[in-house]
């Protein structure tokens, strides 16, 4: 049976497929195609020479394949995918097949791969060819770290043994609860006992992992704490507490439920994380603080930072003799030092300051879970040398905003900002030396498309921005320059619905300047 791909699913990452479809459609309304003088009925098209479609800037087969499955074997009460607005993604379940994967592998070279779709990301182990796909990824690159995100329900010991043969592999286990009954209740996991054993089995097979939890009122705070301690006892490399946010479409959304629960979660997590060794990071970290200070929020076991005796709460004052001005700056300096495997730090602790040198472990040494034997790299942004530095606002963004304002000679500037960074950005922009008569205002667009508790800028869509700017203009008049981050747009400047940002200029009748910004991942 012919498998059709959705034009819309490609619109964000390879919009020229949409252009071809629109062009063909507009032509077929006026002409009929022929073959040897006879009309030919056409109802679709296919990509011709795949070499022409190597347009994705990717180096790993895993990234090029994207989500292996768009279906799940659990029914988590807090699952954000259940709250997706209608029409956001294709609803037909789709599994990446081995034939597609082989062809993608064939055309993946020189930093380019075949164009890929936007699709929802569910449980990869539900793909019937899951292990074949994993093996293909390993064959494609014997040293590439393979990252697997799973709820663990199908992760049997037998499968873990097979996965161990594919090292280096890194697993993010969405455990949520270490109590099988709680897991069964809040996740709808019918094989709940299996998942609870996963951390212990991964540890015994020296596969490093991260534990993930979405705190949920029906789980209770005590179970949350027990789960964090359970992950620590089994030497999770890190634990992520992902604060839930339900859209207005989510069947369990109610306006106040999470607002009352989450402050208590934050307090308990802050309390428990200081007494254990596995770093516990609340995500998004702006929920904890909007401060840009370079404070260590966790130290990975047996990492260079751990060996040197660094602790949660230590302040990074200087890195390789350069004064640290912010957390993002510290991450950038650590990234520069990382290839040498050595970095010199000046640390502030309480009222004292001291110097330490961090040295990466020798190759071949087993320092589980920081970097087990056979792992060349296990470095993620914000975790170099074992120091956990959650993502934050970069001071360089302010410079970029200022440069755009000067280049456009704008007099009335409206800067869009996520609610998570509003205060920080307001403080930083207040110090800009604007030209005489120039005005600058901040606006936090309301996320109406997703609605509910969703308030992060990375989930804006352009129609939200149109509505918010128009509402603002009714009081304050239209600006002549709209400055906004690009972190919610694809590299083609398209939002989640595939709409290009250039339409904002037409619809609102003003200039738009994009500020390149990183997404907050940790």
């Amino acid at each position, binding site marked *: 049976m012919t498998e059709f791909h*959705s034009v819309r699913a490609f619109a964000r990452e390879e919009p020229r497929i949409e252009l071809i479809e*629109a062009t*063909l459609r*507009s032509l077929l*309304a006026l002409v009929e195609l022929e073959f040897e003088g006879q009309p030919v009925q056409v109802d679709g098209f*296919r990509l011709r020479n795949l070499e022409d479609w190597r347009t994705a800037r990717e180096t790993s087969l895993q990234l090029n394949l994207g989500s292996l499955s768009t279906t799940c074997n659990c029914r988590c009460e807090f699952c954000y995918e259940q709250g997706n607005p209608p029409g956001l993604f294709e609803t037909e379940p789709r599994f990446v097949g081995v034939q597609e994967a082989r062809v993608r592998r064939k055309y993946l070279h020189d930093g380019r791969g075949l164009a890929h779709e936007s699709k929802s990301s569910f449980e990869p182990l539900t793909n019937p060819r899951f292990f074949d796909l994993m093996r293909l990824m390993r064959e494609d690159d014997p040293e590439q770290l393979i990252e697997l995100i799973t709820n663990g329900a199908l992760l049997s010991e037998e499968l873990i043994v097979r996965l161990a043969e594919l090292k280096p592999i890194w697993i993010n286990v969405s455990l949520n609860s270490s109590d099988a009954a709680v897991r069964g209740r809040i996740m709808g996991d019918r094989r709940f006992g299996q998942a609870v054993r996963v951390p212990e089995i991964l540890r015994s097979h020296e596969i490093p992992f991260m534990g993930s939890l979405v705190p949920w009122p029906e789980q209770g705070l005590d179970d949350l704490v027990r789960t964090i301690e359970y992950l620590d006892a089994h030497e999770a490399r890190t634990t992520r507490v992902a604060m839930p946010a339900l859209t207005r479409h989510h069947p369990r959304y109610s306006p106040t439920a999470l607002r009352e629960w989450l402050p208590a979660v934050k307090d308990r997590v802050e309390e428990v994380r200081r007494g254990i060794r596995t770093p516990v990071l609340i995500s998004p970290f702006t929920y904890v603080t909007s401060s840009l200070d370079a404070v260590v929020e966790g130290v990975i076991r047996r990492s260079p930072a751990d060996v040197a005796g660094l602790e949660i709460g230590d302040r990074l004052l200087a890195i390789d003799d350069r004064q640290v001005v912010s957390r993002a700056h510290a991450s950038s300096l650590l990234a520069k030092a990382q290839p040498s495997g050595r970095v010199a730090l000046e640390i502030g602790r309480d009222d004292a300051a001291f110097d330490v040198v961090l040295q990466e472990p020798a190759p071949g040494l087993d320092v589980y879970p920081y970097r087990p034997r056979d792992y060349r790299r296990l470095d993620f942004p914000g975790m170099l040398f074992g120091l956990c530095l959650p993502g934050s606002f970069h001071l360089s963004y302010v410079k970029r905003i200022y440069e755009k304002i000067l280049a456009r000679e704008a007099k009335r500037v409206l800067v869009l900002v996520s609610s998570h960074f509003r205060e920080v950005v307001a403080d930083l922009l207040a110090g800009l030396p604007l030209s005489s008569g120039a005005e600058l205002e901040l606006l936090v667009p309301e996320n109406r498309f997703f609605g509910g508790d969703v308030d992060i800028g990375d989930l804006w869509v352009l129609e939200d921005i149109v509505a918010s700017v128009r509402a603002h203009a009714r009081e304050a008049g239209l600006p002549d320059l709209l400055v906004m981050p690009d972190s919610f747009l694809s590299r083609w400047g398209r939002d989640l619905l595939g*709409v*290009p940002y250039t339409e904002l200029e*037409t619809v609102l009748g003003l200039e738009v300047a994009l500020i390149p910004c990183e997404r907050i991942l940790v």
Partner: protein
Amino acid sequence: MREPEHSDDYVWHFKLQDADLVAGEDDALTEMVRQQISALLRCLTFTSDGRDVRVTGFRFLDDPSREHLLLPSLADAESSELE
């Protein structure tokens, strides 16, 4: 015309939506041009002497007195139906 070079490759198939042109005030030929320009503008920005040009419509060379407007696809959340 080039033939596909790898006939044993996995094939990416796409369906065409119905090809009816919704003719408003304009004729079908004008609508065809409008759709193609609109589709192009979703992928690129026209430039003139290095500066971006915001295109909101077009004129046929045989009838320069008449402007045909392009209709952006961007919806306004205020006017879209909220639950």
